[in-house]
């Protein structure tokens, strides 16, 4: 992962997550487009919606999939994405794994029950990891 990609990921974590409502609106819009397609194929209104739902999936299931993947979904994005971010820091700089293990990250997170503080705390640990890595980094031959 390049520094630019890492910065993009950090920015994606820090900026405000899309609201659940916005994502739900998008999924409903996609379902409506699929139903339009079914109507064009000659299905009745009722059949079109049912067939479209079978074909592209339901909104609730898609929201649940976002929840599981930890992407985009506002309620899940903060902690899961931050954990992913932290994992990527450890992957990029394995030497700092001991200093900033997930357990230490978890301890920091546990002290800050509020989601915002939680996110900030984990990001701070990740940034600290990078600073330590930059300080101790020895180029390979």
């Amino acid at each position: 992962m390049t520094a630019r990609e890492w910065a993009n990921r950090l920015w994606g974590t820090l900026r405000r997550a899309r609201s659940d409502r916005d994502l739900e609106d998008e999924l409903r819009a996609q379902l409506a487009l699929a139903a339009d397609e079914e109507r064009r194929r000659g299905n009745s209104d009722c059949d079109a919606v049912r067939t479209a739902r079978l074909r592209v999936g339901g909104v609730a299931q898609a929201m649940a999939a976002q929840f599981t993947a930890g992407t985009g979904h506002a309620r899940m994005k903060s902690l899961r994405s931050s954990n992913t971010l932290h994992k990527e820091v450890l992957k990029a700089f394995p030497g700092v794994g001991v200093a900033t293990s997930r357990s230490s990250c978890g301890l920091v997170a546990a002290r800050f029950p509020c989601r915002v503080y939680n996110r900030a705390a984990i990001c701070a640990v990740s940034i600290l990891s990078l600073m330590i890595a930059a300080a101790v980094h020895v180029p390979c031959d």
Partner: protein
Amino acid sequence: MSNRDRGKTDILQGTLDIMVLQTLATLGPVHGYAIAARLEQVSHGAIQLNMGTLYPGLMRLEQRGLVRGRWGVTENNRKARFYAITAAGRRRLASEKADWERTVSIMHSLLAEPQ
């Protein structure tokens, strides 16, 4: 994706991102439904993405700054979110394509060996 039906194909892990990026690079800004429809079309129906597969991928790409989503209106006056590939997305696509071609070449050589 419904992967239990005969004739349907599992998406190899890690390939969804490259498929979405390539689709956006080819078609320009399109909504999620158009991305799924395009992948179904070019795979002759073998790849059928449902929203539960496509959207986590799209959200992941957006969070990484590889695609950008904006609300717009379709030609049928439906509100939809249109996704466009970013400059970072194009760079990633080029790099992923090179990696993929190398993998295919290796697998091709390996599988072509006489048993």
